[in-house]
C-alpha cells in the first residue's frame, strides 16, 4: 500500500485549486464573441399559452435574438425524454407526456422555459426577457401527488389520464397478503418522505458554441456524465450527431444527482448558438435553481409489516405514491421503482414482500434522483416501521433488528436484489458500543432534570451502489448500459494519464484514482494525472452517480492497468533477458523476482516508445483501454444512532450525538470516505430536521425559492460525528469496494426521527421535524 497507495490518507490533490479559487467551472469559460442568455419562464404553475410576442424584447438594447419553442420545434429539436421504461402491472408502458425544451402550447410548472433571449450582457438579456409578452390562459394547478390522483383534479398531460404515469408492482401480492392474514402482529404506519431541493454549491450553467466552419458544436456544461449528455442530445434531441458534438464538464461544484440529467437549457443554448452565430452562455441564479433543478424524494406510503409470534418479520406490504412533477425527467421512473422497492428487504430476511408504486404528474418541477435516489425512501420506510414495531411489541429496537438480520450470503431477496456480502450485526454492535446505548437511561434522566426530553433512535440501512450490471438494468428497462471505461496512458518518460468515464464533482477522483495507480506501480502520485469530463479526450463512459465511481470506474482502471502491466513485464523481461513470469513490479521498478536485477519504470516506458528493442512482433507504445461491466450491485450497509434532546418549550431539537458505523468494503482513502459520510449525514440531517420544498397548494407557486425560506443545514446545526468502519470486502469487484457517497444521506433521517419520536413519546411527526412541528406534537391532542 505505501504512503500514497490504497488505504492511505492522501490529502486531496484537487483541493489547492478549489480552496484558492482557482477551480475552472463552466461559468468561468469565456470564448471570443460570447453572449449571454436569459430564459423567459412561466410565472404560472399551469396555463395555456395563447400567444407569445417577442417584438418589444427584440428591440431592446443589446439584444441579438429572442427565440421560442415553435422555432425550436421547426428546426427538429426533439422533446426531453425519460430514459428508463417502466411498465404498469397491467403491462401497459408508462405514460410519458411531451416535455418541450421550450414550451409553446402549455406550461406545467412555475419556471417552465418558454423562450430564450440572447444579448450582449446578462443584464440586457434579463431586461429583454421581462419585455417578452405572453398571453396566458391560466388553468387550475395541483402540486400534491395524492390530490393529483383524485377525480376532478387538473389534468396535466393528455397522454396520462388521471395524471397517473404508471401503476407498478414488485413481489408477490398473494403470498404477502396470506402472511399478513396469519400474523401474530401487524404494524401499520403511514409515512411521508419530504420533497427536497438539491442545492449544489455551483448552480447549473452551460455554454453552447456552434462553429460554422466545422459544422461542429461544443457544449460546456455542469454535468455528472458528459458522455451521457452527448449521447442523449445526439440520439434523442437531434442537436447534432455525436461526432459533431463535444461535451465538456470541467470542474463541477457538486451535483447530488441533479446534474445527471440533460435539461432544456443546454439543448436550447446549443441550438441558439447556431441560430444566432454567437456562443451562448447561461448561468442559473439561485432562485432559478430552486425553480428548475430536479427535486428529490416526495413519497407518500402506507406500510404493513407482519410478525409471527416469535417477532420474526413474515411479510411487508407497501403502497407508495410518488410525485414525479410536471414531466418525466431522465431517470425519474427508475428512482421510485428499481432503486427503491428493490431495497425494501433492508437488512432483514423477509420471506414475502409486495410493493405497489403509483407515479403521478403534478404542477411542480420534475423529481428525479437525489443523493441516495430511492434507497433513502426505502430505508426511511423500513426503519421507521421497524422502530414502531419494536415499540408496539415492547421489545428493544436493537433486538428486534438483530433477530431478523440476514446472516448468510449470498442472499436472494424477494425483490430482485441478491446481496453478496455483509455483517449487519458487526455494524450494529459497533454503533451501540460507540453510542453507549446501555448508558442511555441515565442520560435521559439527567436531561429530564434539566427540563429536556432526551431520545435515542437507530437505523440499520442497506443500499445498492456501483450501478450496475448492464444486462440486468437493460432487462428492467434502462435505456443505457451502466459499465465504465478507462484508459491508462503511460507517457514515454513514464508519467501516466488515466482517462476515466467517471466524473468528479467533489468526490476527489484526482486523488483516489491516482492512489490506485501509485500503489500498483510504486510510482509517485504526482506523476499521475486523472483526466475526465471531456468527450473529445475520454472515450465513451457513463459518469458518476449511485456511488459507482469506485466500484465500477476504478475497476475499469484496474482492468486497464492489468493490461499495461502485462505489456510492461514483457518489455522488461525482454530487456533483462528473463522470463516474463518472473517479473514483478515494485517501488517503481520492474524486477526479476528474487534477484536484484531491475529496470526502472520510466525506462520500460521509454523502450515502449523508442521501439528500438522490443520483443519481436510487439506494437510500440504503452497505453491500454478497458471496459468494466459489474456482475452485481454492491451493498454497503451500516447502523446509525442518533441521540437528541428536545426543548419542550420551543420544540427545538438538539442532536447531542450521532454515531455512524458503515461497511463500505475496502476503503481507498479513509479521509475522503469520512468526508463523504460527513456530507451525506449533513444532507440526511437536513432532510430530517430542516429542508422542505413548499409549493402553495392552490397556486402552485414555489414558496421556498431562496435560502431565506429553504433551510439548509449549517455547521452549528450538526454535532461532531462518531464514525467507524466495518469491512466485509465486496466479492464482486477486483478492489472489494462498495461505495460510500450516499450512505450518510440514506441512513440518517430515520435514525433521527426515531430518536425524536422516542423523546416525545409518540409517532405523530413528519419530516422535517422543525421546532414548530415538534412543539405541536408535544401539545395535548385536541
Amino acid at each position, binding site marked *: 500500500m505505501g504512503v500514497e497507495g490504497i488505504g492511505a490518507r492522501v490529502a486531496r490533490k484537487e483541493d489547492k485549486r478549489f480552496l484558492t479559487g482557482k477551480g475552472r467551472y463552466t461559468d468561468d469559460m469565456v470564448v471570443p464573441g460570447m453572449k449571454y442568455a436569459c430564459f423567459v419562464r412561466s410565472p404560472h404553475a399551469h396555463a395555456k399559452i395563447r400567444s407569445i410576442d417577442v417584438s418589444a424584447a427584440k428591440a431592446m438594447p443589446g439584444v441579438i435574438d429572442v427565440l421560442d419553442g415553435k422555432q425550436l420545434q421547426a428546426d427538429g429539436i426533439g422533446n426531453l425524454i425519460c430514459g428508463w421504461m417502466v411498465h404498469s402491472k397491467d403491462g401497459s408502458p408508462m405514460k410519458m407526456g411531451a416535455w418541450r425544451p421550450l414550451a409553446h402550447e402549455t406550461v406545467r410548472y412555475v419556471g417552465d422555459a418558454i423562450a430564450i433571449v440572447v444579448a450582449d450582457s446578462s*443584464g440586457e438579456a*434579463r431586461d429583454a426577457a421581462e419585455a417578452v409578452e405572453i398571453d396566458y390562459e391560466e388553468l387550475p394547478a395541483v402540486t400534491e401527488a395524492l390530490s393529483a390522483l383524485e377525480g376532478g383534479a387538473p389534468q396535466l398531460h393528455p397522454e396520462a389520464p388521471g395524471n397517473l404515469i404508471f401503476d407498478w408492482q414488485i413481489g408477490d401480492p398473494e403470498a404477502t397478503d396470506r402472511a399478513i392474514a396469519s400474523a401474530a402482529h401487524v404494524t401499520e404506519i403511514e409515512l411521508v418522505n419530504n420533497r427536497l431541493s438539491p442545492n449544489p454549491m455551483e448552480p447549473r450553467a452551460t455554454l453552447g458554441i456552434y462553429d460554422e466552419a466545422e459544422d461542429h458544436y461544443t457544449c460546456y456544461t455542469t454535468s455528472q456524465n458528459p458522455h451521457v449528455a452527448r449521447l442523449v442530445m445526439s440520439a434523442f434531441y437531434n442537436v447534432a450527431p455525436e461526432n459533431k458534438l463535444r461535451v465538456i464538464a470541467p470542474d463541477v461544484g457538486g451535483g447530488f444527482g441533479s446534474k445527471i440529467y440533460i435539461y432544456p437549457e443546454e439543448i436550447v443554448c446549443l441550438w441558439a448558438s447556431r441560430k444566432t452565430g454567437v456562443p451562448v452562455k447561461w448561468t442559473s441564479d439561485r432562485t432559478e435553481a430552486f425553480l428548475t433543478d430536479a427535486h428529490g424524494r416526495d413519497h407518500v406510503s402506507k406500510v404493513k409489516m407482519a410478525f409471527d409470534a416469535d417477532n420474526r418479520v413474515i411479510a411487508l406490504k407497501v403502497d407508495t405514491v410518488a410525485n414525479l412533477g410536471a414531466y418525466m425527467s431522465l431517470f425519474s421512473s427508475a428512482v421510485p421503482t428499481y432503486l427503491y422497492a428493490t431495497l425494501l428487504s433492508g437488512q432483514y430476511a423477509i420471506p414475502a414482500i409486495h410493493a405497489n408504486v403509483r407515479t403521478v404528474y403534478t404542477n411542480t418541477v420534475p423529481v428525479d434522483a437525489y443523493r441516495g435516489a430511492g434507497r433513502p425512501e426505502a430505508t426511511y420506510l423500513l426503519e421507521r416501521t421497524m422502530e414502531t414495531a419494536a415499540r408496539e411489541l415492547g421489545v428493544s429496537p436493537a433486538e428486534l433488528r438483530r433477530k431478523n438480520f440476514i446472516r448468510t450470503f449470498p442472499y436472494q431477496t424477494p425483490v430482485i436484489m441478491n446481496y453478496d456480502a455483509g455483517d449487519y450485526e458487526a455494524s450494529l454492535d459497533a454503533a451501540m458500543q460507540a453510542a453507549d446505548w446501555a448508558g442511555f437511561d441515565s442520560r435521559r434522566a439527567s436531561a429530564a432534570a434539566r427540563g429536556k426530553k432526551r431520545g435515542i433512535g437507530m437505523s440499520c440501512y442497506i443500499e445498492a451502489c456501483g450501478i450496475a450490471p448492464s444486462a440486468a438494468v437493460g432487462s428492467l428497462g434502462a435505456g443505457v448500459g451502466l459499465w465504465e471505461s478507462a484508459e491508462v496512458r503511460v507517457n514515454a518518460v513514464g508519467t501516466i494519464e488515466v482517462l476515466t468515464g467517471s466524473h468528479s464533482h467533489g468526490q476527489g477522483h484526482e486523488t483516489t484514482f491516482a492512489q490506485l495507480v501509485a500503489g500498483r506501480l510504486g510510482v509517485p502520485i504526482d506523476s499521475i494525472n486523472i483526466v475526465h469530463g471531456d468527450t473529445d479526450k475520454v472515450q465513451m463512459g457513463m459518469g458518476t452517480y449511485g456511488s459507482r465511481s469506485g466500484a465500477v470506474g476504478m475497476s475499469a482502471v484496474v482492468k486497464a492497468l492489468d493490461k499495461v502491466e502485462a505489456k510492461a513485464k514483457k518489455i522488461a523481461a525482454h530487456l533483462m533477458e528473463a522470463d516474463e513470469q518472473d517479473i514483478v513490479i515494485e517501488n517503481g521498478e520492474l524486477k526479476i523476482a528474487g534477484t536484484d536485477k531491475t529496470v526502472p519504470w520510466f525506462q520500460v516506458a521509454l523502450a515502449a516508445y523508442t521501439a528500438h528493442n522490443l520483443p519481436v512482433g510487439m506494437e510500440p507504445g504503452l497505453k491500454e483501454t478497458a471496459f468494466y461491466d459489474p456482475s452485481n450491485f454492491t451493498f454497503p450497509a451500516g447502523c446509525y444512532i442518533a441521540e437528541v434532546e428536545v426543548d419542550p*418549550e*420551543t420544540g427545538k431539537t438538539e442532536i447531542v450525538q450521532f454515531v455512524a458505523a458503515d461497511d463500505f468494503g475496502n476503503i481507498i482513502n479513509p479521509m475522503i470516505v469520512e468526508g463523504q459520510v460527513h456530507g451525506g449525514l449533513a444532507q440526511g440531517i437536513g432532510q430530517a430536521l430542516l429542508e422542505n420544498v413548499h409549493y402553495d397548494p392552490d397556486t402552485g407557486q414555489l414558496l*421556498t425559492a431562496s*435560502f431565506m425560506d*429553504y*433551510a*439548509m443545514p449549517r455547521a452549528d446545526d450538526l454535532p461532531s460525528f462518531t464514525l467507524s468502519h466495518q469491512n466485509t470486502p465486496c466479492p464482486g469487484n477486483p478492489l472489494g469496494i462498495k461505495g460510500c457517497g450516499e450512505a450518510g444521506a440514506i441512513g440518517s433521517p430515520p435514525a433521527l426521527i426515531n430518536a425524536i419520536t422516542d423523546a416525545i413519546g409518540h409517532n405523530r411527526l413528519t419530516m422535517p421535524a422543525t421546532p414548530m412541528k415538534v412543539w*405541536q406534537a408535544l401539545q395535548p391532542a385536541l
Partner: protein
Amino acid sequence: MYATSYHRASSVEDAVRLRGTSDESKYLSGGMTLISTMKQRLASPSDLIDLRHIPGLKGVSVEGRRVTIGAGTPHAEVATSQAIRAVCPAICNLAGHIGDPHVRHMGTIGGSIANNDPAADYPAGLLGLGATVVTDRRSIVADDFFTGLFETALEEGEIVTAVTFEAPEKAGYAKFNNPASRFAMTGVFVAKTAGGVRVAVTGAGSDGVFRHPGFEQALQSNWSPDALVSIAVDASGMMADMHADADYRANLVKVMAKRAVLAAA
C-alpha cells in the same frame, strides 16, 4: 439588477441634495437588504446615494449611561464595543446574533431600523430601550418611529443619523431563529428603564415590532420569569407563515420573554 447610478455622498447635506435630484433614488448603507432586493429585481432605484463614506455617521459614544450609536455603525462594531458592553450588554448580544459575520460587518443600525423588517432584531432593542432615533431634521422616540411592516415615521428623504438611549438598569434579549433565514422568528427584548419596565417583541406580530403591556406590568411588580407564566399571549395578532403559525409564535413570545428576563439576570 436593473441599471442604476451610484453617488458617493460626502456629508449628510450632500446626501439629502443628491437624493432630491430624483424621486426614484435611495440611500445605501450596508446594502445587506437593499442590494439583494435589487439583485432580485424587486427594487429598482434610479440612483443610489451611498452614505457609507460620511464621516459623522459612524461610531459609538458612551457618556455616563448615555449611549449614542451612529447610523452607519455596522452590527459587528456594536457587538464588540467594550464601552457599550460596560453599560448595556444586551444590545451587544443582540447585534452579535444578527445574520452571519458578513452581514454583521456590512449591515448598519441605521439601515436596519429604516428598513424595519418585521423580523429584524434592532427594532425590538430600540423599542425595548425606549431609544430615540435622531435624523437630519428631528428626534423621534422609538414608540413613534416603528409604524408597521417595513414602515417607519421617516419622511421622504429623511436620513437617520444616530440612535441614542439611556442605558437601563437591566436588559436582556432572547431570540428564536427562523431555521432558514435566522432572522427572529420571535425575539423579545426586556429592559428595566428609568421610566419603567419595557418589553418589545419582534418577529411575531402581524404589524411588526410591538410592546407587550401585560408582560410589562407583571415584570414591573416582579422582575422574574415566573411573573410571566400566568399571562396569556393572544395569538390573534400574530404573524403566520410556513415556518410558524400564530399559536406557535404566541408560545414563543412567552418563552422568549422568560428567557430574556433570565438573560438580563
